[in-house]
């Protein structure tokens, strides 16, 4: 770190092409003028026709946008991926063990390895989950791990997403689009498939059905509805899995069991893959004003009659303040050193660290502990002086509400920009499924900051996506 030259995914410092990008470089050099531009336009048309859109909050209701798709894939070598996926598997196992402990005996708090106050006073801690036994002991079944690369060997975990991570449909549709747009490129490369994600998701969900469920478990995907920004993904996944896509009012609880309302009467539901936040899940247990949830579903869950995926209360393990303790958590439960690195994080409640942070704010990234989606954060080097001052005041007022990290030089990947190819910063979100076993889809979603120099890759802030290839040996 400190080195400000970002790692280039495609080119070595001497200008030669890195091994995994050889086939792509050859293919790119053969493309006639404007070919990439045409491909880009085709991609946009494909996505719009298929309705692969997301709603933008704060814009007119019903406004649907297509997330920009970049036609140049991001490529990861086989041995790089093997290392990464080992680290990811270690991490999700430890985080699930942590969740089980936090909602049971709390050994890690007793041992003083994680401060008790940080957990028990945390808004993401869900006391209703205490003592509950989830099927197979799994809390976070569907996880997106946000990674950034800062060097040939240096991946950092930026954050873990253990609540309801989204974007996996883009991983699948980006691949679909890429195969339509550049079939010849696939012929030259051995790319690990991502297409079995829905099947693996189904197997994962079935594997965590309540022990007392009979026959093939009935799975429902619970969506807030068609105006939700990720509605396309909800319907896509339900469709691909052959599961029922439900809104809250399609489900009801009777006698501690969950049913859906069908044309021929009630039908029992065993597993609910809910894409509704904890707060809105059940007005009887959580927010009473929620219209999106299913009254009584939490009690049915507690009674062991339905499995909620992910479990409520997983947010305690991906909280930004808890994040700094993940290496500690891995050591505590697995007795292993963390294979993936955390980004160094400054603790503003410590007076020395806070003073250092305030002095160097122009070089740092400040994030709200409970913020997400690129909101509530400040990237020092690109922010104005007013913003520096504003965040200094915020940190002083509530030091526990912010974490501060050095500005990472996110790696860059060649990206098609108005007919040219130019480097843009990227991150990587692999998707992990945890049930009877851990299943990691090779690759994941690469998000790219389309604005020159920008480090913010969120789609709500002008980011796009790329197809992500893991090469096979």
């Amino acid at each position: 770190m400190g080195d400000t030259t970002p790692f280039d995914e495609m080119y070595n410092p001497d200008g030669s092409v890195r091994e995994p990008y050889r086939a792509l470089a050859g293919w790119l050099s053969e493309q006639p003028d404007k070919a990439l531009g045409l491909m880009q336009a085709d991609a946009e048309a494909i996505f719009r026709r298929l309705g692969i859109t997301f709603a933008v909050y704060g814009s007119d209701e019903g406004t649907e946008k297509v997330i920009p798709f970049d036609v140049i894939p991001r490529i990861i070598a086989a041995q790089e991926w093997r290392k990464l996926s080992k680290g990811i598997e270690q991490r999700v196992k430890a985080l699930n063990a942590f969740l089980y402990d936090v909602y049971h005996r709390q050994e890690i708090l007793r041992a003083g390895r994680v401060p008790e106050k940080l957990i028990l006073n945390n808004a993401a801690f869900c006391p209703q989950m205490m003592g509950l036994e989830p099927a197979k002991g799994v809390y976070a079944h569907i996880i997106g791990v946000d990674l950034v690369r800062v060097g040939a060997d240096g991946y950092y975990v930026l954050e873990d997403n253990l609540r309801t991570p989204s974007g996996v449909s883009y991983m699948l549709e980006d691949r679909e689009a890429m195969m339509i747009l550049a079939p010849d490129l696939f012929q030259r490369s051995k790319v690990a498939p991502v297409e079995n994600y829905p099947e693996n998701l189904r197997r994962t969900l079935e594997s965590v059905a309540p022990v007392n469920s009979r026959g093939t478990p009935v799975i429902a995907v619970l969506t807030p509805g068609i105006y939700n920004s990720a509605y396309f993904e909800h319907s896509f996944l339900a469709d691909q899995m052959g599961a029922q896509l439900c809104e809250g009012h399609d489900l009801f609880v009777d006698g501690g069991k969950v049913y859906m309302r069908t044309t021929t009467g009630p039908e029992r539901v065993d597993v609910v893959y809910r894409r509704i936040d904890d707060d809105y899940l059940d007005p009887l247990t959580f927010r009473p004003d929620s219209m999106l949830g299913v009254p009584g579903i939490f009690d049915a869950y507690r009674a062991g009659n339905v499995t909620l995926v992910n479990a409520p209360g997983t947010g305690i393990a991906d909280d930004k303040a808890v994040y700094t303790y993940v290496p500690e958590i891995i050591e505590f439960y697995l007795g292993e050193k963390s294979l993936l690195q955390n980004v160094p994080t400054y603790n503003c409640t410590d007076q020395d660290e806070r003073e250092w942070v305030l002095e160097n704010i122009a070089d740092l990234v400040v994030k709200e502990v409970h913020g997400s989606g690129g909101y509530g954060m400040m990237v020092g080097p690109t922010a104005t002086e007013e913003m520096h001052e504003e965040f200094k005041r915020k940190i002083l007022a509530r030091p526990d509400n912010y974490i501060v990290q050095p500005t990472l030089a996110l790696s860059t990947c060649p990206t098609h920009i108005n007919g040219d190819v130019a480097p843009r910063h990227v991150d990587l979100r692999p998707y992990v499924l945890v049930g009877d076993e851990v299943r990691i889809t090779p690759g994941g979603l690469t998000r790219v900051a389309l604005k020159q120099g920008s480090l913010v890759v969120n789609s709500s802030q002008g980011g796009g996506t790329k197809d992500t290839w893991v090469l096979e040996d």
Partner: protein
Amino acid sequence: MRMLGRTAQNLFWLSRYVERAENMARLLEVGYRMSLTSRREGGASEHLVSMMQAAEVDEGFAEKHDVADVDTVAHYMMFDPDNPNSVYSCLMAARTNARSVRTAITTDMWESMNEAWLEYSQIRPRDVRGAKLLELLQWVKQRSHEFRGALLGTILRDDGFSFLQMGNFVERADNTARILDMKYYVLLPRATLVGGDLDIQQWTLILRAASAHRAYRHVYHDRYKAHNIADFLMLRPEMPRSLVYCARFVQQNMDTLTTLYGRKEACHEVAQGMVDMVANTDMDAIFAHGLHEFLTEFIARNNRVTDALSESYNFY
């Protein structure tokens, strides 16, 4: 996997709204052509207003416009989002329903619906005048045909198919009854044996609205006669837009559901009542009863079929 009641409802209304968009285009075409042929002062406006009465959008129109001419009426019928039955509103509602049940319809159906909406929502109303209007009306009908083609060609013959078909034909029955009611008085038997030129013109337009002006010749081998035209659009079982055809079609789809679900629901009786009304009668009896009264009663019964379906299959 059993179907959600809400999914059944969305499928039913998806089809209904596509059919309604098409029928609004058909009605507007008749109104427009009639207004062109009127030589009387104020006649054009009268034709347009009676067309809007048939579509039951006349009151909403009057709240927004003082003058009913081709421009104001076409805009209200085609593009006005305040008119819940405008082609714009119908296509939007159809697409919203399709979006809610993407998992229950095929990709071909979704793409057909989505493209129709995306194209239509980008049309600038002021570009649509004169010949362009007729072109666009034709386009709406074609899009409806395309959607139905995608539906028939790709969807599984399960309960979802039955709900889609019922939505389609409940709406079509409603529309045919409304087209007839719009000019029911020119269809009434009268002293003169042969209608005047004006009558013939209006009959032609009514038949056109139902895409039936050429089929009429095949069935009747005769010149246009009011009695035959009414018979054709109401009681002929081989005419796919006739009341009897639509009523029977709805009933058959309910029968399919009965077989599939192994259970007969209360809505069957209501559908049976509608079929009886048009299957066991003839035009003389209908004229004796009163054509307008008969059509009004038919529309009301058809509405009750929708209510009964919602009740029996847990739409909510």
